[in-house]
């Protein structure tokens, strides 16, 4: 392979969440020779959680696709080769968008790498002794008792892909009906509910590694609900706000004022995030949840947050999330909604250090000026990582949040 002269670069499969380590391109949205610009959607990638539209992070011209549609590949695998547009420099790793820090705890958790961390045409051949192969090829080979080392891979960089294993097994020993049956059982078992498996792994890690502390504070939603009712009167439906948008805005502002809660616990230390990227847990009707985020949420107006929220919920529920929403969240909100429970003692999404929860709004006794009244009340909770902060900071955060919710007109 000749040394790249800074004119071509490879676009690698980005990690679309801390728990993703493989995916398959199910559709190219661009063709060979197309000029693409930073932020353009280039492909639809199927992950265990959802189909996600992935974005390119550098301007260029599509030279060649390096994976087949439908082929399962590891995160970091080059999936397309691009040429730089004349006169523009080739991308350096620093051109990757601000994202969570790259260090990961284990090879199976490569998430939070900047989307094109390996974009500059690096030698594809692995530096370790591990034989390059796609996860599917690995599993097939294991099922069929084939040694990967004896195969010559035809995938990117000589990686062994499914077709190589299939070819090898059909030339040596044809799979017996029993093998076939076993494989389909395995496949069925894996695909029963991959999202459940991912959530299980993620939450087990969180519970095992994060010493959580939990705080709660009741918030009077009276001012917010009256302000919203008035605000929404005479507004066309498309411009109306929901309480959820106000919660996100308030959390973003409170987080901006308490940066100790905004970031990641990585390599035994707290790594503050540069921007407040608020993720929200969106439950899916088929089960499970996804947590896309809104970048720079503290710098966006309520209307912008409402728009971003609507867009992400619709995308989550129709399986069309964008890759840039899926990495780099610095704090997460879970909102139980009107029909949920009163409060949530949340589990933090690692490597983040805080999760804010909102219970349902309920009629509740409340004291104002020594008078007992009935108000709409929600219980806001904070689950925070005790390695990163102490309860005093968490308490101050909730106090700030309460003050913000008390004055919705200032949100």
């Amino acid at each position: 392979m000749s040394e790249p002269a800074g004119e071509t670069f490879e676009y690698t499969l980005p990690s679309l969440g801390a728990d993703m380590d493989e995916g398959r391109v199910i559709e190219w949205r661009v063709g060979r020779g197309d000029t693409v610009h930073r932020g353009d959607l280039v492909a639809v990638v199927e992950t265990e959680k959802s189909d996600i539209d992935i974005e390119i992070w550098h301007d260029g011209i599509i030279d060649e696709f390096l994976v087949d549609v439908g082929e399962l590949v590891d995160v970091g695998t080059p999936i397309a080769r691009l040429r730089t547009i004349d006169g523009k420099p080739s991308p350096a790793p620093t051109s990757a968008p601000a994202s969570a820090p790259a260090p990961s705890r284990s090879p199976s958790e490569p998430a939070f790498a900047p989307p094109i961390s390996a974009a500059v045409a690096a030698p594809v051949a692995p530096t370790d002794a591990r034989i390059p192969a796609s996860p599917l090829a690995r599993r097939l080979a294991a099922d069929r008792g084939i040694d990967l080392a004896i195969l010559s891979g035809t995938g990117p960089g000589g990686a062994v892909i499914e077709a190589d294993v299939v070819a090898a097994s059909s030339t040596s020993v044809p799979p017996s009906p029993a093998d076939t049956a076993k494989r389909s059982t395995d496949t069925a078992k894996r695909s029963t509910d991959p999202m459940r498996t991912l959530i299980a792994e993620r939450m087990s890690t969180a519970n095992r590694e994060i010493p959580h502390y939990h705080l709660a504070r009741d918030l009077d939603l009276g001012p917010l609900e009256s302000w919203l009712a008035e605000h929404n009167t005479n507004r066309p439906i498309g411009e109306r706000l929901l309480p959820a948008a106000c919660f996100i805005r308030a959390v973003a502002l409170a987080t901006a004022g308490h940066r100790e809660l905004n970031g990641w616990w990585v390599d035994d230390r707290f790594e503050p995030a540069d921007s407040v990227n608020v993720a929200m847990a969106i439950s899916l009707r088929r089960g499970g949840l996804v947590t896309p985020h809104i970048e720079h949420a503290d710098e966006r107006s309520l209307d912008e947050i409402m728009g971003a929220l609507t867009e992400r919920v619709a995308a989550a529920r129709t399986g069309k999330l964008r890759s840039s929403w899926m990495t780099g969240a610095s704090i997460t909100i879970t909102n139980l909604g009107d029909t949920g429970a009163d409060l949530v003692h949340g589990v933090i999404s690692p490597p983040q250090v805080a999760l804010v929860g909102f219970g349902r709004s309920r009629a509740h006794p409340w004291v104002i000026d020594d008078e007992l009244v009935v108000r709409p009340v929600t219980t806001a909770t904070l689950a925070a990582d005790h390695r990163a902060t102490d309860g005093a900071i968490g308490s101050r955060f909730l106090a700030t949040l309460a003050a913000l919710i008390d004055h919705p007109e200032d949100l």
Partner: protein
Amino acid sequence: MTTPDDTRAAREHTDPPGGHEQVEFTMMILSAIADVAPELEPELADLDHDVDFWTELQLDSMDHLAVVTRLAEQSGIDIAERDYPHLTTIGSIRDFLAAGGR
């Protein structure tokens, strides 16, 4: 597995006697729900038109907004927030739309 014919039969069966317009609004409501929540489509044929379907189908406030937005766009009828509490069943929304939003 329901076929479109089954769906239509079920709908005609549960529809109270009403004009052509009412059937159209019913269809509009069901398709708005199906757009927002495609997974629920199979359940829509058997949906009782007199129950609170938001609760029945576990739709949340984001779904609610999305459905109402679609209905307003398609019918051209504004649906104010103060009307929301009355619009909980297929029947009540259909009547509301058929009456031009009153």
